[in-house]
């Protein structure tokens, strides 16, 4: 672990923490444009975070220490996830500490604790949200794992850094299996980030919410940590998608010129990805909760199909 690598790793982490709310703001901006509304401004998520940090925390009488520590835990998990996904460069120190399976485990850990925090106060909405979140989780997680397995089989490695090197830096090959995997991944990320058609991030309509129902009891700095963590999650999924399906422009092995060049490419790719997300959300309607298993079951099947296609056609 050399100093340059550690610096690059730290830059990547810092960038993720700073850029994540901007991405959320950008998606909201695009949605507002598409819905013919006037947008709240690109920097609105930062203002919300600043406001929430200033506010007083109101805790329910029976909130346990688990409830108070969960926001920091979830934030830490997602920040680590953001550091693991190769956003600017491959071959960074943390790449060896956790591979794609560990990344999925890390995201599952964050979900585990947010669901427990939702159940902690013992309100009707909290438990309802926790149950729904875990249902989406157990359907989406295997699909995500299968997508990553397909990429791992292609690149003969489950390390995300090696996957990006194999897909982006060797000679260009079109993999039909990655097309299936791409569709599956898109569906999974919609569900995991509480987006339409599975959940609606803008709603407090009681019967349809999932993510919002879990975090209803949070306020002040705790809510700010959770909101920031949600932005980070969207950022992590976006960067994971970009790394798997559009790995071009990511620097190799932490060389500085490459990293400096990779930054504008990343911003451009994220902008395009965010706009695409807004378009997908605009074109679909929120589903009933029990249609979600069908939606995610399809994603799971597509991901397994991707693996089969790889074994049959490409191996």
């Amino acid at each position, binding site marked *: 672990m050399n100093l340059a690598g550690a610096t690059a790793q730290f830059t990547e982490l810092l960038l993720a923490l700073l850029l994540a709310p901007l991405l959320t703001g950008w998606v909201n901006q695009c949605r507002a444009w598409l819905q013919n509304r006037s947008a709240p401004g690109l920097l609105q998520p930062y203002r919300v975070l600043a406001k929430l940090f200033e506010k007083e*925390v109101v805790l*329910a009488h029976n909130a346990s220490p688990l409830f108070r520590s969960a926001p920091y835990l979830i934030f830490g998990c997602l920040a680590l996830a953001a550091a693991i996904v190769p956003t600017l460069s491959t071959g960074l120190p943390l790449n060896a500490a956790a591979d794609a399976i560990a990344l999925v485990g890390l995201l*599952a850990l964050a979900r585990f604790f947010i669901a427990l925090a939702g159940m902690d106060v013992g309100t009707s909405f909290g438990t309802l949200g926790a149950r729904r979140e875990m*249902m989406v989780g157990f359907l989406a997680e295997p699909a995500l794992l299968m997508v990553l397995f397909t990429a791992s089989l292609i690149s003969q490695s489950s*390390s995300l850094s090696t996957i990006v090197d194999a897909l982006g830096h060797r000679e260009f090959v079109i993999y039909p299996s990655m097309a299936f995997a791409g569709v599956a991944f898109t569906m999974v990320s919609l569900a995991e980030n509480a987006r339409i058609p599975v959940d609606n991030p803008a709603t407090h309509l009681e019967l349809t919410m999932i993510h919002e129902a879990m975090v209803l009891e949070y306020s*002040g700095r705790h809510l700010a940590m959770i909101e920031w963590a949600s932005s980070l999650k969207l950022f992590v999924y976006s960067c994971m998608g970009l790394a798997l399906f559009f790995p071009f422009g990511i620097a190799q092995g932490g060389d500085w010129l490459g990293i400096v060049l990779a930054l504008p490419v990343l911003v451009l790719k994220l902008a395009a990805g965010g706009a695409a997300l807004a378009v997908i959300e605009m074109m679909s309607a929120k589903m009933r909760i029990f249609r979600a298993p069908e939606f995610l079951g399809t994603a799971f099947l597509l991901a397994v199909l991707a693996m089969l296609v790889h074994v049959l056609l490409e191996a």
Partner: protein
Amino acid sequence: MIEMSSIDAGLLAAGAWIAIGCCGLAAPRSAGFAGRFLYPAGAAVGVALAAIALFALFEPPSTRVLPLGLPDLPFHARLDALSAFFLLLLGGVAAGVSVFAGGYLRADQGSSPGLVCLCYHLFLASMALVLVADDAYFFMVAWETMALSSFFLVTSDHRHAEIRRAGYLYILIAHIGAISILLCFGALQAGTGNYTFDGMRTLQLPAGWATVAFVLALAGFGAKAGILPLHVWLPEAHPAAPSPVSALMSAVMLKTAIYGLMRVTLDLIGFPVWWWGVIALAVGLASALFGIIFAAVQTDMKRLLAYSSIENIGLIVAGFGLTLLFRGFGMGTLAALALTATLYHCLNHAFFKSLLFLATGSVLHATSERSLGRLGGLIHRMPWVAWCALIGTVAIAGLPPLNGFVSEWLLLQAFLFTPDLPQGYVNLLVPVAAAAVALTAALSGYVMVKFFGIVFLGQPRDEALAQAHDAGPWERAGLVWLSAACIVLGLIPHAVINMLEPITRQFTGYGISGEMRGWLFVAPIEPERASYSPLLFLAVATALILAAWLAVRAFYHGRARRAPSWDCGFPWQNARMQDTADGFGQPVKVVFQPAFRIEGEAPSPRDSRPQYRETADDRFWFWLYLPVARLVDRLTGLVTVLQRGRISIYLMYSFATLLVLLFFVR
């Protein structure tokens, strides 16, 4: 000082357990004597046994012939790396469980404390003897002692009819399994009459007989391990037994069955055929998915854990199947990887499952309530139990950086390398199998949120819970021991894999620890393909969490105010509006509807006293067990014709039998 080999030390430990058990009879009515002295002594023996086993892992096998047993077949005992590994598991878990049991078992429950103490230590000793037995006769004696002593422990609270019924079902299936194992040994000795394992090892079985032996072993040991469709006793027997006993049964006894399967297949037969692996893989994955789906809909916390044991055993058998598959194709390194993952998962499951069973025991004592629907909010009343249980749930859900994740990671890595297999159809099956493992792992997260969230979080669902007290010091010590093991096993995978190396070398000829990048990383095969470092992972995660917390503390005020909960402004909420265990199981019931046999009725909207009832039953009862039971019932009905209840007729039967025998003997 007398020179002592490791097998002698192991046998001595088993003997010490038997002696401790017999001491229990000295004061059979005194719970204090057993609790304060005998169980802690048993725990000390457990620690000693674990130390002996750890030493023996890296030693060449040692043997001993005991002057007991049949005239021409004395008891043979042998301690090799595989036995040593399972003895280590037994000793480590028994230490934690025994300390807990010292504070847990009381006089007011069913059998007298002295008797329970005897059965408990006999159970421990018989498990140790199963693991060192080196001939079929000794093995079966120890195996049956294990079954019987655990049967008496399961039925120790024998005043309840359902506990007696659970015990009956358990002993029935245990004996079906035992018959199968006996037949398996019959097939293995192949007419030579040599029932020592050494004889079976050197014998080259014809392929047909080897297959027969494998299938019998899978069925026989599978009945003990609880794989499909011989799993039905698990969810009945585990809730019936006292919690330390459930913990031992689930954590160690199921593993002795895995040990037996490995001993017979990898050692005694010695040359697995690849398609045996496919069978084991299919059965294992079916058990895993079945177990976790059923765990999700349970409302009794110990039944939930019992079904989760079926899931974990399923994963272990699937990993073992993968080992056989690779071994059958002669791919040694990959077989070593799969075997490492399997054994690692055995160790992990032993620790986190016993931890969770003990936690349910503490909850049961504090609240006298086993039904999830009447618990809740116990994190406030029982913080020790709650935080230890949280470690157990994170571990069992397979989340990093605890131990459950490492073994699942290794197993998934083994799946990722299968496309190199020479058999095309198997290659196609493997992605589907990997998908099933992924689904199982994700579902176990769901089940564990349900378990922990409903028992320990939220508002108490019953007023009586306000009087719940935390576990006593002995119970705490046991829980902390097992939690610490879960954390340590998760953080030092490199050491554990080194420990497993002698076993994989013995049975596959390869080890996977040589390829590592150093003590910090786990990198099976080669570092470029996959690596994971739990210590680094934990260090960075902790640093980030602390940094976030300190930054928020430094830059913002720390004001917090307590108020009633918000719940979208709804003021009249009460504890009954939280999700029940049934409610939490509902999504799984809907998504996996075909797996269940659902019966129930919903009340009509105008019903003034609405009663909602729904049961989700195991289809195997109706497909397999009830038809067989009916058939047996009918056959015994035919036999009762002979039973007349008059002594003259019975004497006539004896006379007729004697005549027939004389005819044959002449």
